[in-house]
């Protein structure tokens, strides 16, 4: 009997131990998870004809997040990717998906101006701070929204620098300005046109809508025909407001038509894909590009650049807007840290998102791209003078040697 009782006691004890042990194990894992998780979204082109921009940027953000996670923060950070292929048609759905993530506190991106323009109403309604490393269209900062921030100077600065480069440095007296009818391309082309006209240059404007090379509808035949007209009109310079996928069609068309003047495009065309698509590659020789990544808005350097290359496999020197995405991640984390885990734990997600926007508006940051402070409209403080890089294509690769304007 005693023996049997002992057995029962032993069985009960074992059962009790098991019962206790399970919750203990449960608590143990819950203990690790009490460190809350916050998600930073990235929206940009991760596939499609312009995905190089997206890859450049998402790795910049990921690097910032990895470094913070290794830094014993009171919370864990994650990056969630939203692939809009750079398209304004696809971006609202990606924005809707991003705002629906319950612990997603801010978005780095969208990368492209047209995509940002289309997604902004969704983000604004959700009070989601969007910090774009590269959307440069002027119109993005004139909507009165307070959730928009950009890490580069807008196309008013870049377009003016480009026009002045053509007019003053290259002494162009006549310019044909072409745009691709996108929100970005038409915007920067208009800035160049306005500045050139104000300087009394002879300006002819033409629209060549995005072709099948950019996953759009227009046929590539338009470039050869337009180039023939340009060759006969003999302007001193041609400026193209658009993306690399079509700049790669325009350059050979101009070269085959025998046009010998200056040809320039802006950051939409500063894409490694330009050099793999332009056919033959010699047609691009001598052409000019610009981007908003000079002076205080340069590329990653030093140990950060090495860490970036190890993470992404992309050479930082030609990874346009990598540093801007890295800094965008850092300032969002700075905002989270300043708000603090206590407030983050009690806030609703909308309150947290609004608090991040408020913090970004109120503070100045020291980033790898220099001092970062935002105007009320989301543009960087300052005139941006000296922040526009001008590149000339000389070989088979995207040029990295820049002059600042």
């Amino acid at each position: 009997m005693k023996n049997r009782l002992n057995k029962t006691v032993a069985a009960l004890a074992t059962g009790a131990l098991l019962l206790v042990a399970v919750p203990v194990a449960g608590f143990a894992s819950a203990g690790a998870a009490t460190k809350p998780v916050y998600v930073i979204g990235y929206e940009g082109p991760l596939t499609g004809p312009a995905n190089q921009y997206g890859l450049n940027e998402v790795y910049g953000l990921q690097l910032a997040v990895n470094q913070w996670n290794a830094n014993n923060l009171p919370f864990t950070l994650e990056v969630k990717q939203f692939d809009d292929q750079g398209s304004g048609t696809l971006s609202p759905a990606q924005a809707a998906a991003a705002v629906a993530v319950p612990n997603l506190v801010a978005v780095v991106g969208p990368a492209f101006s047209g995509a940002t323009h289309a997604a902004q109403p969704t983000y604004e309604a959700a009070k989601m701070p969007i910090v774009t490393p590269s959307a440069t269209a002027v119109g993005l900062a004139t909507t009165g929204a307070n959730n928009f921030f950009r890490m580069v100077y807008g196309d008013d600065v870049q377009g003016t620098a480009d026009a002045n480069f053509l007019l003053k440095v290259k002494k162009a007296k006549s310019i044909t300005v072409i745009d691709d009818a996108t929100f970005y391309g038409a915007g920067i082309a208009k800035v160049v046109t306005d500045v050139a006209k104000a300087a009394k240059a002879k300006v002819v404007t033409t629209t060549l809508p995005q072709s099948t090379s950019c996953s759009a509808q227009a046929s590539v035949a338009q470039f050869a025909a337009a180039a023939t007209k340009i060759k006969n009109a003999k302007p001193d310079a041609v400026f193209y407001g658009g993306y690399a996928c079509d700049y790669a069609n325009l350059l050979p068309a101009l070269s085959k038509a025998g046009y010998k003047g200056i040809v320039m495009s802006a950051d939409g065309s500063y894409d490694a894909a330009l050099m793999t698509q332009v056919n033959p590659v010699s047609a691009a020789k001598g052409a000019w590009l610009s981007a908003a990544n000079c002076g205080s808005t340069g590329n990653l350097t030093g140990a950060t650049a090495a860490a970036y290359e190890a993470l992404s496999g992309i050479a930082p020197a030609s990874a346009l807007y990598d540093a801007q995405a890295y800094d965008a991640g850092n300032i969002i984390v700075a905002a989270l840290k300043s708000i603090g885990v206590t407030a983050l734990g009690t806030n609703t997600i909308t309150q947290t998102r609004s608090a991040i926007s408020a913090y970004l508006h109120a503070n100045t940051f020291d980033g790898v791209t220099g001092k970062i402070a935002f105007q009320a409209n989301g543009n960087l403080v300052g005139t941006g003078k000296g922040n526009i890089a001008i590149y000339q294509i000389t070989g088979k690769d995207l040029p990295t040697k820049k002059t600042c304007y």
Partner: protein
Amino acid sequence: MSGFFHYFSSHFESFRGEFWALFFGGIGSGIIYAMVAIGYTMVYGVLRLINFAHSEIFMIGGFSGFFVLKYGIGSSTPSGLSSVFFVILGILAGGIAGSLSAVVLERVAYRPLRKRGAPKIAYLISAIGASYFLINIAAKEFGRIGQSMVQPYTDHAVFTIFGAPIQMYTIIILIVSVLMFLALDRIVSATKLGRGIRAVAQDSETASLMGVNIDKTIAVTFLLGGFLGGVAGFLYAMNFGVLYSMGFTPALKAFTAAVLGGIGNLRGAVLGGLILGIVESLSVSFVNPAYIDVVAFAILILVLMFRPTGILGERLGRDA
């Protein structure tokens, strides 16, 4: 009114200056349209069906030539005889891949429908389905980013006619197309095979009673049309590079050209292609180059309204 005259006089001024360059540019694109249009017109001749997946035959031809040259040439640019060799190699790669895929397409997407006596709309849906299938599989396998063709030669202006530079590329496509058009014309009008194609086009039932193998004749038709389509894809890709969606616009233009010349009519397809290429190219003297596609498809609508049978008329089954 004076503004109106000024508009035209100033445009005619520039028109005079750029006429020949635009004209030869138009011939270049017109030849590509013509080669693709032949594929549409031949299939229409024997099956009374628009093979809307023909645009993907064009794309497959482009990619085959692309891969052959990429691995055959590497990073150098050949010259002299090896240039000629690689151009011919690319043409064969494009043509063979084009004809093989056209034959497979016929077997998979059309023949089962034909055997079941399916209505015409089923062919159309099958064609569109096959087209989307091929576009998306190409996008998945080859990526959604355009790539430029490794150049088998160094393109340059060889000579000028009336001040218009004529590129080596234009000369190559002229020679290739003329040879292929002549060969095809001979095959269709003077061989037993061609007689079979014409017989099936005219009256397939009677043709089969007279001992013509319908299945084989249809397969040969797809083979020939696919060859030209594939070669056109390669020639186009030499200039514009390859992309999964590269076939869409040129093929739609080629379809326009086939209708313009008279669908079912081989010589009409060539004529239609050339006219379409030249007219759309010359139009940029008067309208923004962005309207080039508008001009092309306005022509299609006008032809359908005023001469639905095309310039040379439908000539199904008769001499070429």
